[in-house]
């Protein structure tokens, strides 16, 4: 596969580095200068071959983040480095070259397929845009359809409305894979599917990842799904990263109170251990006017004076095993009464 030749940085080089990504949307009809801080200084690495899960409540900026990574929305600030090459930089790679290597699968399987195009043409569109002839693109579409478990002769000529939700999402995955990307961003890709179909598609995604050395950025609000598929998890709250770490660490020893609350909000499988009270109450504060200091303090049971004064920093990651959280309780110097002690 040609992806081996363009694996420039070697295995240690993160596939994608996002540095301080920022996107503020102007508020229509709002006060002059009022902005929604949809993504407010997000930094993370995606290592080669891993699945990075991104979780958070609705409106925390997950989908905006996904679109920023592909430059579908222009970031206001921040930097993207793909396999050592800065995106949009003179000496780096262009946005188009990035889109050649990073693809996206959207949540709504119906609206992400052209209703007036047979699905094989939708799949062949990507290779065609990247310079293949129509015949070559058609052959690629057939191959990819087989890879996602759909018979090309049976499903290729169909229109999206003739397919079920799960089949459509397979087509969307096929469309993303058709140009042989190295990384796929899955934006709530299985959230709209039935549980049984969801499981099928998740297993398909796992198999495809192994077969094609893919790297996933898996965005979801469903913690069980994220736990199943991810190697590392990034927790977002109100446009910022609050916790980042390996999946076992996040789920067994969460460091941030928000992550703890998220995990506690999962419905229990055991009726005897039913959750009686929601662990976290109220809606997230408005991203137009986020709280001072720590953004989570308005809903945090451990909030203290220091939380309103200074913004906790996430800390630096070193490698795939780093487990970091943006919380004053993690910082011995912060002055928070519950801060971990240095021994």
């Amino acid at each position, binding site marked *: 596969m040609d992806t081996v030749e363009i694996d420039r940085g070697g295995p240690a080089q993160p596939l994608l580095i996002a540095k301080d990504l920022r996107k503020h949307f102007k508020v229509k009809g709002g006060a002059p200068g009022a902005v929604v801080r949809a993504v407010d200084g997000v930094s993370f690495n995606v290592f080669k071959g891993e699945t990075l899960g991104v979780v958070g409540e609705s409106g925390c900026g997950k989908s905006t983040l996904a679109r920023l990574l592909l430059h*579908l929305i222009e970031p206001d600030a921040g930097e993207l480095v793909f396999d050592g090459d800065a995106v949009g930089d003179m000496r780096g790679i262009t946005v188009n070259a990035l889109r050649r290597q990073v693809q*996206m699968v959207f949540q709504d399987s119906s609206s992400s397929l052209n209703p007036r195009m047979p699905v094989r043409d939708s799949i062949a569109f990507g290779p065609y*845009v990247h310079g293949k002839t129509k015949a070559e693109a058609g052959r690629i579409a057939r191959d990819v359809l087989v890879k996602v*478990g759909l018979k090309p002769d049976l499903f290729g000529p169909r229109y999206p409305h003739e397919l079920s939700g799960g*089949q459509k999402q397979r087509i969307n995955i096929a469309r993303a894979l058709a140009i042989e990307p190295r990384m796929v961003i899955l934006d709530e890709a299985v959230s709209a599917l039935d549980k049984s179909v969801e499981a099928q598609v998740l297993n398909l995604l796992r198999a495809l990842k192994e077969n*094609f050395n893919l790297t996933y950025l898996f965005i979801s609000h469903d913690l069980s799904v994220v736990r199943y598929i991810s190697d590392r998890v990034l927790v977002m709250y109100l446009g910022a990263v609050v916790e980042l770490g390996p999946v076992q660490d996040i789920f067994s020893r969460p460091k941030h109170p928000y992550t703890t609350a998220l995990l506690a909000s999962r419905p229990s499988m055991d009726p005897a251990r039913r959750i009686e009270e929601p662990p976290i109450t109220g809606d997230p504060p408005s991203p137009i006017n986020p709280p001072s200091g720590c953004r989570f303090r308005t809903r945090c049971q451990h909030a203290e004076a220091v939380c309103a004064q200074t913004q906790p920093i996430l800390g630096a990651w070193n490698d795939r095993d780093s487990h970091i959280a943006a919380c004053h309780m993690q910082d011995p110097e912060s002055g928070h009464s519950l801060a971990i002690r240095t021994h």
Partner: protein
Amino acid sequence: MPNTMILPTAMIEPAAPKQRGYWGSVGNRLRYDPVTVFFGLVVLAIILAAIFAPLLAPFDPYKESIIGRLKPLGWKGHWLGTDELGRDILSRLIHGGRVSLLMGVVPVAIATVVGGTLGVVGGFGGRKVNTAIMRTMDVFYAFPSVLLAVAISGAMGGGAMNGMIALSMVFTPAMCRVAETATAQVKNLDFVEAARATGAGTLTILRYHILGNVLGPVFIYASSLVSVGILLASGLSFLGLGVKPPTADWGLMLSTLRQSIYVNPVVCALPGVAILITSVSFNLLSDGIRSAMDVRM
């Protein structure tokens, strides 16, 4: 890439329905719609009659007769009677269809191309482009369409050509709005964003993803405008702003026969009946095509 791989789930195999192309399935649905087929045939007959008018017309449509004026149906081989100058009504109706159809179809075609292009550009372009195009079109909306047609052709002087230009200008803003709305709806769907994410340029996206979804509504609207065009063209001729006498034209015939309505009411109403049949047929045909073209049914 390896061609063989183990799949986590079994192949899904529903019964294979017969596969048709898009236009094949549209044609198939039309076959089972007798109303649309019937009015389609009527439209076809009207068009053929207009094309082969010199062969079909039993008399010379311009041959006058002093003694044979305003005769009833069936008088001396004149199946539909004669007009106020003794000319054969049937022959004049067949010949009149040429002008009426031309004035119904040509302005719609012009408006579809001009208005459709402006609409797609306005719908896909940024806010400034959109505002510039759509607010200009709104100016035309300030006038009722009949008044606008009368004003434009009145200002430019009568005649078939000026009438068609006037009607084109009347239809363009409406067509532009239809195309703009359709484009704006499609533009924000995920598949356009997905196409951008594959690295496709604006023109490629327009060609492969926008046009296919916009042409449907535009085409349907155009087909319904044809009957309006025929009516407006007849109206212009009726007012003396369209074609000039003695040209055979339905609107003009209605206008001149109007004065004889107390002498022979049936004959005088015939050009109106021709206009009615034509516009109703075009409307019902376009309705049928509209539902047959909806791929999601």
